[in-house]
C-alpha cells in the first residue's frame, strides 16, 4: 500500500490500556415458536461464543456476510437483546441484566447507530424532537432552550447546515445520508463513550458512504470513542478500524490488526472473504479480475447449524475433527488469532500450510 492510502497506521500491536467494553463468550439463541407442540423446541443459534474487547479511541471492525450474527452482537452490547449466556463487561465490571435505572445508566455510555436510517427515525417527530429528547433524558439540558441550543451544535457537528433549517424537518424530508447524520447526532447527544455502528453506510448511496465514514472517524478521534464498526465489506474495515474480527455463521473465526488480517488472512473463510472482495491490485488493465473467484456457498442454516466448525461444509481443508468440535483460539502473535484446526496444536491432523489470500 502506498503512503497516501487512507488506512490507519497501526503503530502499536498491543491495544493500549484497559478495554472499556468487552464481551466474553457471548451466546445468543432465538427460540422459534414452532406450530407443532409435539416437536422439540428449536432455536436460531445466532451467535456462538463471541469474545472481543473495545478500547477508547480505537475501532474494532466486525466483518461477516449477511446473517453471520453481526447485528445480534451489537444488539447484545446495546442491551436490546439479553445474551443467552456469557458476560458483558463495562469498564471491567460485569453488566447485570435487567432494566430500569441501571440499564439507562449503561446506555448513557453505550449507544447504537442503526443500520437503516429510513427505519430508525420516528416519522411523526421532527429532527428537533429526535435530538432534544436524549439531551433532556440524560440531563445534559435542563430546559427546552438549552436543548435547542445543544441540538443546533450537534447538527453542526454532523455537518447538517444550516442547522436551524434542519431542526424543523421531518425524516421524510431528508435524504438517506442526512437521516443517518441525524441518527448519529442523536446518539452523540447522549455523550457516550462507546459507539456501536451497525453497518452505518450499507443502506446509503455509494457516493456518500465515505463522507459518513469520515464523519465517524473524526468523531472517534475528537471524543476518544471506542467504536464497534460492523460491515460486510472487508475493505472498509481496513480503512476504518485498527482491529478486525471476522464472523462466520455466528462464530468469530479470526481477529487481529486489520492490516494483518487483510494481508495475511489465516482462516480459510477469511481467505475466501478477502479473495471475493474487490481489490484494485487484482484487476488487470481492462478492469477484469486476474484471479479466479472462489465458489461461494450459502451461509448454513442456523436452526440446525453444522457441528464443530460451522465452516466445514464449505472448507477446502476440512478434516474429520472439524465436524466434531469448534477449534479453540490459536494465538498467531502480535494480536492475531484464529479458530481453526489448521493452526491448532490439539488437532489430530497435521497442520497443512495454507497460502495467503
Amino acid at each position, binding site marked *: 500500500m502506498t503512503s497516501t492510502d487512507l488506512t490507519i497506521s497501526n503503530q502499536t500491536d498491543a491495544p493500549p490500556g484497559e478495554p472499556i467494553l468487552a464481551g466474553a463468550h457471548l451466546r445468543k439463541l432465538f427460540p422459534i415458536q414452532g406450530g407443532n407442540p409435539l416437536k422439540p423446541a428449536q432455536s436460531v443459534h445466532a451467535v456462538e461464543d463471541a469474545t472481543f474487547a473495545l478500547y477508547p479511541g480505537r475501532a474494532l471492525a466486525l466483518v461477516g456476510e449477511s446473517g453471520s450474527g453481526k447485528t445480534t452482537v451489537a444488539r447484545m452490547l446495546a442491551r436490546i437483546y439479553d445474551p443467552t449466556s456469557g458476560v458483558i463487561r463495562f469498564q471491567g465490571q460485569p453488566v447485570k441484566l435487567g432494566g430500569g435505572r441501571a440499564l439507562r445508566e449503561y446506555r448513557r455510555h453505550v449507544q447504537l447507530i442503526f443500520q437503516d436510517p429510513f427505519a430508525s*427515525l420516528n416519522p411523526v417527530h421532527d429532527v428537533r424532537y429526535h435530538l432534544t429528547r436524549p439531551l433532556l433524558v440524560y440531563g445534559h439540558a435542563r430546559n427546552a432552550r438549552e436543548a435547542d441550543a445543544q441540538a443546533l451544535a450537534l447538527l453542526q457537528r454532523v455537518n447538517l447546515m444550516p442547522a436551524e433549517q434542519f431542526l424543523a424537518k421531518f425524516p421524510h424530508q431528508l435524504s438517506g445520508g442526512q437521516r443517518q447524520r441525524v441518527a448519529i447526532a442523536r446518539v452523540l447527544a447522549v455523550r457516550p463513550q462507546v459507539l456501536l455502528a451497525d453497518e452505518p453506510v450499507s443502506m446509503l448511496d455509494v457516493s456518500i458512504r465515505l463522507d459518513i465514514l469520515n464523519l465517524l472517524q473524526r468523531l472517534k478521534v475528537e471524543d476518544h470513542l471506542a467504536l464497534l464498526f460492523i460491515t460486510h465489506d472487508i475493505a472498509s474495515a481496513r480503512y476504518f478500524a485498527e482491529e478486525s474480527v471476522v464472523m462466520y455463521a455466528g462464530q468469530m473465526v479470526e481477529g487481529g490488526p486489520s492490516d494483518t488480517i487483510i494481508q495475511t488472512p489465516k482462516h480459510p473463510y477469511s481467505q475466501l472473504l478477502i479473495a471475493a472482495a474487490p481489490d484494485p491490485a487484482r484487476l488487470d488493465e481492462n478492469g477484469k479480475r486476474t484471479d479466479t473467484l472462489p465458489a461461494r456457498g450459502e451461509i448454513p442454516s442456523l436452526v440446525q447449524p453444522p457441528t464443530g466448525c460451522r465452516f466445514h461444509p464449505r472448507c477446502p481443508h476440512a478434516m474429520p475433527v472439524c465436524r466434531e468440535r469448534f477449534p479453540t483460539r490459536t494465538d498467531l502473535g502480535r494480536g492475531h488469532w484464529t479458530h481453526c484446526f489448521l493452526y491448532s496444536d490439539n488437532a489430530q491432523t497435521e497442520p497443512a500450510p495454507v497460502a495467503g489470500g
Partner: protein
Amino acid sequence: MRQSPASPATFDRAAQPAWSARLGALLRRSWSLVTLNRKVMLGSGIVGFFILVAIFGPLFVTQDPLKYTYDLVAPPSPAHLLGTNQGGQDVFSQLVVGTRSSLGWSFVAGLIVMAISVTIGLVSGYFGGFIDDVFSVITNVFLVIPSLPLAIVAVQYFNRSTFTVALVVALTNWPWGARVLRAQTLSMRSREFITAAKASGERTWRIIFFEIFPNQISIVAASFITTTIQVLLAVAGLEFLGFGDQATISWGIMLNSAYTGSALFQGAWWWFAPPGICIALLGSGLALLNFGIDEIADPRLRLKARRAPRGKAATA
C-alpha cells in the same frame, strides 16, 4: 464539554420565542392544517359552527324554548323565526338550545371511547402476554353486547336521560377502536424507530404515548368521530322513538314531538325539518372531517397535499 458551542446569534434565533409568538405559530399551524383540503375545510366549518352555537347560542335566545304560547303551529315569522309547534313553543330557540345537549353528549361519549380504547389498545398491544390476554377477553365480551337494545333497557331501568344513552353507546363502542389500536401497536412495537427510542433511553410510558401513539392519531381521531356520530344518531333515534326525557330540549325530542303532533300531515315543515337537517348536517360535517384526518395526521401526506395544487389535493 465536547460540544463545540454554537455562536450566540444562532442561539437566540432558536431560543424559545415569547408565548404570544408561540400562540401565533400554533394558530397559523392549525389554520394551515384545517385549510389543507376541501373535505377538512368544509367538515371543520360545519362542526365548528355547531360547536359555537352549542356554546354561545343560548345567550342569544330571548324566548324560553319551553314556554307555551297561543301561536299554535304558526309558520315562520319575525316573531318566531322558525315558527312554533303544537304547544306554541318557539322552534328556533328549541333548535339552538337543543344543540348543546345533542352535541355535548356525543362529544363526551366520543371522549370516553377514545380514552378507553387508547389505554386498552396500546397497553394490550405493547405489553402482550398476560395483560393482553386479560384485556382481549374483556374487549371481546364488550364487543358482542348489542348497543341499542341495551340502551333502551338502560333508559327504562335507570333514568330517561341523554346521559344514560351516551354512556351505554360509549361502553359498547370502545372495543372496535381498541382492537384496531392493539393490532397497530403490536406491529409497531417491533419497528426499528421504537427500538431506537428505547435504546436512546426513553421510558416505557413515553414509548407508548409519545412514540407509538402519535403514529395512530388518525385511527384515534377516526374512532372519536365515528363514536360521536353514532351517539348523535343513537340518541336522536331513541328520543324520536320516545325513550327520551320530555323535560329536556334536544333535536331528537323535537323530532319526537313533531311526530306525535303529526307535523307532516299538517304540512308544518318548519317543525320537523330543522332538527332533521341539523342532525344530517352535523353528521356529514363529522364524516367529512373523518375522511380528511389521514392527511392531517401524517406529516408526509400533509406535505404532499400542500405541494400539490389545490384541485388535485382535493381529488387525490
